[in-house]
Every structure is written in C-alpha cells, then in structure tokens.
C-alpha cells in the first residue's frame, strides 16, 4: 500500500489530496477533496496525469501575428513538450474562428488542438 499527496488543480480551491493505492497500484481511497471532481482528478493523476495545453500558433495575415490555442480536452502530461513542438511548427491562415480545430489528434493523443479566440484577417 502506498500513499500519494498532491494539490488538486481542478478548481481554484486547490485542495490537498491524499490518494491511497494498493499493491497492484489501484486507488483504494481519496481524501482531502471537497467535491467529486477532486476524486476523479485524483484517480486520473495517479494513473494517467493530464493537463490542458494552452499556447499560440503563428497566423498569416491576421490582426495579430499569433492566435491563442488550447487542447480541447486535457492531454497526457508526458506528451506536452511534444505537443508544444507540433503546435510551434504550425502556421494557420487568418481568419481563425474560436473552436476551429487546428490539429486533429495531436501527436497521436486523440486530443484536438483548437483556436481559443476569433482572429480576423487584416
């Protein structure tokens, strides 16, 4: 049996979570959370930690030279630097619409990269 402690990042409260794992690595107990989101975050964090990736992409002919993007859903934490490079290689044409998928299934993670604002062409 092992115990892991970390901060829940699901909401601004930042609860201190304590997760108990059995010898097979299965979660047997989550403590410290104040909501169900915290419990599911705890389970995900020990097995498959994920984060939303947010950055920018280069835009040609836009009102701004870069457009903010995000991973539509949380992406595997271990893949974030690979994703950052994939996003850095991209050049998109203005106009960009919020929610527009810019990369499908980025780095084989099954996660999409979407634009997070409208960006008009100049």
């Amino acid at each position, binding site marked *: 049996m092992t115990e892991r402690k970390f901060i829940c990042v699901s909401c601004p409260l930042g609860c201190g979570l304590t997760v108990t794992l059995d010898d097979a690595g299965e979660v047997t107990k989550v403590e410290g959370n104040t909501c169900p989101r915290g419990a599911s975050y705890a389970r995900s964090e020990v097995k498959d930690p994920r984060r939303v990736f947010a950055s*920018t*992409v*280069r835009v040609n002919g836009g009102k701004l030279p*870069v457009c903010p993007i995000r991973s539509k859903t949380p992406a595997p934490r*271990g893949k*974030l*630097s*690979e994703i*950052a*490079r994939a*996003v*850095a*290689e991209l050049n998109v044409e203005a106009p960009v619409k919020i929610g527009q998928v810019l990369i499908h299934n980025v780095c084989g993670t099954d996660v999409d990269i979407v634009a997070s604002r409208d960006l008009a062409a100049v």
Partner: protein
Amino acid sequence: MNYDVVIIGSGITGASIARELSKYKLKLAVLDKASELPAGASRANSSMIHGGFDDKPGTVKAKFCVPGNKMWHKLKDELDVHLDECGSYVCAFNDDEVKHLEKLLEQGKANGAPGVEIVSGDVMRSREPNVSPEIVAALWSPEAAIINNFEAVNAMIESAKINGAELFLETHVTGLLFDDKGDIHGVKTNKGEYLAPVVINAGGVHSGEIASWAGDNSFKIIPTKGEYYLLDRTTGGLITSFLFACPSKAGKGITVLRTAEGNLMSGPTATEQDDPEDRSTTPEGLAEVLKGARKLLPNFPVNMNITTFAGVRANTESGDFEIGALAKPRGFVNAAGIKSPGFTSSPAIAEYIAQLLKEELADRITLTPNDKFIPERRNIPRFLYMDMESRKALAEKDPAYAQIVCRCETVTEGQVLEAIRRGARTVTAVKMMTRAGTGRCQGGFCCPRVAEILSRELGLPLDEVTRHGGESKLLVGKTKEFLLKKEGATNE
C-alpha cells in the same frame, strides 16, 4: 570627414557649446557614445539651476554659476524648456549650521546672486508647512529653479542642429589625431575619424582620460556616484521649492525637490568610485538618501517611490571646473570636470568657450557670425499640459495625437512619432524626449507600445529594438522559432 570643431560629449556642457558655436559659421560635429540624450551625468542629477551662493568667490564655478542661472531664465522660452522657477532653501538645524548660512549669504552677495536672504525656520514653514519642525533657519534663494534636464539637453542639441551642427550618437571617441606639428588634427572613433583643427573635451566623467590623451595630466576625474529616489507625481504637492541640507565636504548633501514635472525626488549621495560607468544603486546609498530626505521632510512618502537611479558625476581633486585651451597641443580645449553647478553654468561656459576660440585659437579657426542663426526651438507638444481646445485642434490636424501611448504621463502617439522624426531610435530616447515611461508604471504599459511604434517607423523587427542601444535588446526572438531552434525537449 572634415569639421571646424569636434565636440566630444553631448551632455549639457557639450550641447550648450554646440548651440553657442552654431551662432557662428562653423562646421560642427558633436560626438557621443550614447544611443540617446541625455545619457551621463546630465540625465541623472538633481536638475537644479542653482542660485549661485554655494561657490567660493574666485573659483571657476563661481564665475559661471550666476551668469548661467540668468541665462536659463531667458533660455527657457527661447528653447521651450520646462523650468520651475521655484527658489531654494538651504536648511540649518543648529547654530553651527546657521553660521554656515551666513557664510553662504556672504558668498551669494560676492557672487552677485540676487535676492538671497536668511529666513527663520517659522517663516520657512509658513511657506513650506511639511518641512521638519527642527529647522531653525534657512537661506532663501529666489532665483534658484528646477529644470527638466531631459528636455534641456535635447533642446540645446536640437537648436544646434537647426543651426547646422551635426550630432553623431553611438560614436565613441577612442583617441586624438595630431598633425605633423603635434597639434590637434581630429579624433579617432569607433565609426572612423573626424578631422578638425579644434577639439573640445566635454567628456564629463571621461574628460580626465581624454585630456590625458592630449598630454594634459593636470587634473584627475574622481567618478562620484549620486543615488536618488523618484516618487509618484501625486507627491509633488508636499513642497513648492528645492530643499538643501547644509553641505558637507562630499557635496551639497541630500536634497529634496520637486521635479519640473511635479515628482518628489531625493538625493544624491556622493560616493567616490573607480568605474565611471557604474550607475547601479546600492542598499547603503538608498538608505542614506532616505535618512537625508526624512531629515528635511519627515513624512517623505517613500512608499510612493516609482524608481531609484544613480548618476556618476565628474568630480575633480580641486573641486573646480577645468576650462581652457592647452598651449600645446594647439586646438585642444577642456570643458572638463563639470559637476554641480554644471547644468546651471553650461550656457555661460559655452559663451566663454566661444570667446576663448576667438581670442586664443584665431590661428586655427575664424568665428564669423552666422546671420541665419535661429534662436527659437519648440519642444514636442506636451499633451498633458495643453488646454482642451489646443488638444482638440492638435488631434484634428493629426489623429496620432488622439491616441495615448503612455497612460501615466498622457503621452500620445503623435509625440512619439515626433520624437522619432527628431532622431529617437531607442525606447529610452523616446522616454527622454516625450516622458513616455517616466510615470508611475515605469513603462509597464507603454514600453511594448513604444517598441512597436519604433519597429514600425524604423522598419526594424521588434526583437531588434533596444532599450538604450548596444546590447540592450528588449526581446530575444520570435516565440515559435525560438522553441523550434532549441535542441531536444523542455526541462520537463
């Protein structure tokens, strides 16, 4: 490149000499290693136009201070420079210091400083209610004033340029050139040679080294650092005049003043150092300033500080200015060791230098009056101080004046563009010429905007724009290119 006169340094001394000499038909080159003006001691000082009581009668300083003061009261209109004609007090806290005030009063009279008088502490407090209750008497000097030193240096050099002088920035003088008789032939710089029969050394803190190139080792510059606090403009109402403590050997002591733009300011320390370029502030220096400030103004609101800075002034062992032409090599003129009251004295020094060229160097150059000399020079419009009708008219004529770039000092894009037209190439140059970035957020808001305008107007990539020239680039590259250039993964 051939000139009649090369002036080394474009601080207030060099700039004033350039303007004075532009009254004559001369081909003038002004060289300064900085990327923007003012840069050296002329940027970081107390911006004081002294009343003229502080200098021992008979010294070179005493000779120039009172006439310089008088000239500034006239130049402010001619050159369109902010001058707050506020007067100054030297404050005495005990009998010994009162005796010192009496000595200063005598000196003032001997130097011809008008209107200098001693008033009681109570009289002073009736005019300046926030000063220390422990002040027992004060020397009042009504002609003392505070100048906007950023404007003044730029005004002087612009006026010289209007009248034909050429300014070369980022031009570092590395040595002198001599003709076959061993007399002055010009200067060597990082940008090539500038030839002239007369070279004027207005090199400020470097003027001792420059003089030594001409074989003049008669004086030595002792770089002396002065540290300052600069407070938010809302604090300026605490005083209406310039406050000195009684001077010590090291300098005029810690002062409290209100800048021409209304910021409360305090300083300077007087710390001798070897490095003429070390303008870093120190914990000890800042603590000393704060102590001195609170002595004069017990409620000095240091929590409203917006920046601290230091300047390095060109002190000499004698404590006096070093002004004059060398007998050998001919053509080398010192306007060196100019420290306080240098700003005050500069126009008078410049007049003297012109006279000296006529009298002592007539074999090398001829000073024929320039009948086309234009004395007036107008500042970049100061939107902050304009009335609403003038603002409207300006914005109608040029929409760039209907766009704020610096919100703290209400500086418009029109002003920034005008500064660039007048030669600004760095963020600090724009700051010196428009005050963008001098306010309470210290460029947090306007620095990126000024950088964008510089980039657009000069056709420079944003990451080539510098804060103050040299290696002071604001940015290190474009985001995505930066990441892709980097080998391997991030430090995850």
